């Protein structure tokens, strides 16, 4: 019983309800949104890649850091994936996943090392690497681009085909989400990430391995962005030098909408994942509902502000309740 009430009270439940509401309203307006064969698939498929990035982002934000370079990491690893198919055609195609993950992890390691050892706020460091990684991408790609014809069919099929009705990309994203959620909730290392974000100074006094954990969070975030880059190549088939630009803001937005506190210490990867779905589903729903193009960005903004205001209101109410509880003790 206590379990059920705490589930109902969870921040994630509210976001999920909002998502369901958007889907229902849009479907009533245009049944094809959900019930056409493509409709259901797109609903699951479109946000899958952002979900991976948002999960990584959430883990970093929980430690009271932020990674603004994820979009650039995604772009670089998407292009790298295409280059591998062109330059090393003898490699079995599934190895690109491994390469993408390791490559993204390395870029994340650079971020993490700069943050952990240079003692500069992550916001500044990753803003720098956002431009640096993108610059390398532009330098490398030039006006070139990867085309679907450069990549193996099996790989491209992954971007569109399904497993028992679930698109492969969604399956991959869900597996990652479940593992990340399990890790953050049940593992010591996961809980320590929360502790570090909640009060970094206290974490130091506790003797937690703050530097090591923060570094690991950045590597994880980079690796997920790298994986997302590989999936991006599979899904869209064309990769130019601007792939994934702007995704960092969507990822941060998804995490915040999903209830991950921007100052760390609270929120879940589940929330961030649902936030990613809500964000992109609204983007797709608005045209169906007849909302003009230029309003769509504004709606996303309202969503983020709304989430922050909601968090604030909930926090104030909670602290007042706790104070009154003390009163009546």
């Amino acid at each position, binding site marked *: 019983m206590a379990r059920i009430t705490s589930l109902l009270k969870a921040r994630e439940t509210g976001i999920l309800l909002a998502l369901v509401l958007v889907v229902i309203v849009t479907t009533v307006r245009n049944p094809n949104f959900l019930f056409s064969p493509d409709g259901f698939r797109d609903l699951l498929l479109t946000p899958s890649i952002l979900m991976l990035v948002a999960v990584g982002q959430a883990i970093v934000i929980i430690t009271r850091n932020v990674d603004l370079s994820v979009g650039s990491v995604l772009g670089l690893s998407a292009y790298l994936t295409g280059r591998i198919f062109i330059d090393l055609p003898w490699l079995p195609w599934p190895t690109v996943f491994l390469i993408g993950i390791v490559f993204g992890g390395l870029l994340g390691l650079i971020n993490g090392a700069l943050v952990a050892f240079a003692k500069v706020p992550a916001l500044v460091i990753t803003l720098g690497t956002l431009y640096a990684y993108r610059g390398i991408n532009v330098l490398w790609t030039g006006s070139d681009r990867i085309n679907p014809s450069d990549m193996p069919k099996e790989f491209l099929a992954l971007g569109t085909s399904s497993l028992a009705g679930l698109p492969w990309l969604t399956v991959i994203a869900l597996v990652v989400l479940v593992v990340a959620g399990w890790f953050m909730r*049940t*593992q*010591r290392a996961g*809980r*320590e990430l*929360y*502790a570090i*974000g*909640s*009060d970094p*100074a*206290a*974490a*130091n*006094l*506790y*003797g*937690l*391995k703050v530097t090591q954990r923060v570094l690991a969070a950045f590597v994880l975030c980079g690796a997920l962005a790298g994986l997302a880059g590989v999936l991006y190549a599979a899904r869209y088939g064309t990769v130019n030098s601007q792939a994934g630009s702007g995704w960092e803001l969507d990822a941060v937005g998804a995490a915040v909408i999903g209830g991950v*506190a921007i100052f760390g*210490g*609270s929120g879940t990867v589940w929330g961030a994942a649902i936030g990613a779905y809500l964000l992109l589903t609204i983007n797709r729903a608005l045209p169906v509902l007849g909302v003009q193009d230029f309003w769509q960005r504004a709606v996303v903004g309202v969503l983020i502000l709304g989430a922050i205001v909601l968090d604030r209101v909930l926090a104030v109410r*909670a*602290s*007042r309740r*706790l*104070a*009154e509880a*003390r*009163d009546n003790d």
Partner: protein
Amino acid sequence: MTSIGTAPPPALELSRIAKAFGAVIALTNGTLRLESGSIHALVGENGAGKSTLVKIIAGLYQRDAGEFLLEGHPVDFTSTAAAKAAGIAVIYQEPTLFPDLSVTENIFMGRQPTGALGMIDRRAMHDEALALFERLGVRIDPDRPTLGLSIADQQIIEIAKAISLDAKVLIMDEPTAALSGVEVDRLFAVARSLRDEGRAILFISHRFDEVFSLCDTVTVMRDGAYIATSAIEDTTVDAIVRQMVGRDVTTLFPKTPATIGDDVLVVEGLNQPGVFHDVSFTVRSGEIVALAGLVGAGRSEIARAVFGIDPYSSGTVRVGGQLLRKRKPTAAMAAGIALVPEDRRQQGLVLEASVARNATMAIRRALSRFGLLTTGMENASARIWASRLEVKTNALDTEVGTLSGGNQQKVVLAKWLATDPRVLIVDEPTRGIDVGTKAEVHRLLSELAGQGLAIIMISSELPEVLGMADRVLVVHEGRITADIPRAEATAESVMFAATHSSGEAA
């Protein structure tokens, strides 16, 4: 150095520990010998090196020289984790908790019980937390977040943490600074039972009554060096104070009688649900009114509401007959109220700024010419108050963060006195301040009252309340439960009112 063949080695032995931070020498001769099954007091003025010594024991700092033995074996801690693993638990002056996490997680962070696949066993953790609280005789919901807990409860969680560590050596750095009455008794009961289990406890405090009632042995430090260790029954407060300051301190609370004039501050029927209820009181010029009570009783909240920082739902605040607007600290300042907050590092000072800038912070508008303010003007104004309050600093451009607690407090006082207030509210004016400076702060408050200032002093230290106040208002659970004149104020009468609701139906 006499060695007795069969006696067990002391739980912890430090000799001739030295530590310097760049050019600043914090410790020249840190020497301490903790026996198992004993509570050992460490006393000394602020800056005597106690905290540095503690941080070396905790593994936060590494010593430059000296010997560090744990149960007879030399040790070298490179991190707090290493010290913890060796069985040393430290309870710092300010509780260090993770506000977003649950009470249980705070206790077990980093060493949670785990089961298959390294999964944390939440059930076991929860049950163990409950068992710990039962043992400590407190009721705290182990599942609630630590955010919003009173400092006393936070302190209890720190202790629960130390106990669950099964620490051989437990260090408490001024654990009672934020506690009063009942909570201190509870803490002491726990400390004694831990001692009886054979643990070594180091207790750091500025309160001598506590040292004498709790401890077996006392070590005095001064200027980064060991002075003396004596059994508690072989020493006296006077002797310890002499060892601490290296001179005689005449009297701690030199309140001089002042002529009490007209009502200056009149508070009527102040209410804020959940925080305080039906608060009415008057402070006259020349009068020091103490707000006593347990921590969390709502004293600071009342002061903050009077000053206009916190809201109140009904009631009035008048200064010199003039009604103050709610939630307007600027209006309160204009009417002549000054508030020296409890937490001077967070709320009273800009630590990175200079003494002069801090001391003129509240009069920047008045001090400026055509909207411009020069360092010269700041220094000129700050110099007056710095010298009147005897702020010990080399130069007015010293960063405030580098001053000792006592001198920081003087800078906060200087800041507010520069506004020429009629009502001065001081919240825990001598928290964490050493004996010598404490007496100076008391003398200063007494002097200010003599000049006709109306003073509200919030204090958790009974001797301070009894020594300084003309009148004691006791707050219990957000209500003023007693108004005791100086002549009738005793430790018993104040503590009784602080722990009981008033007799008549409120």
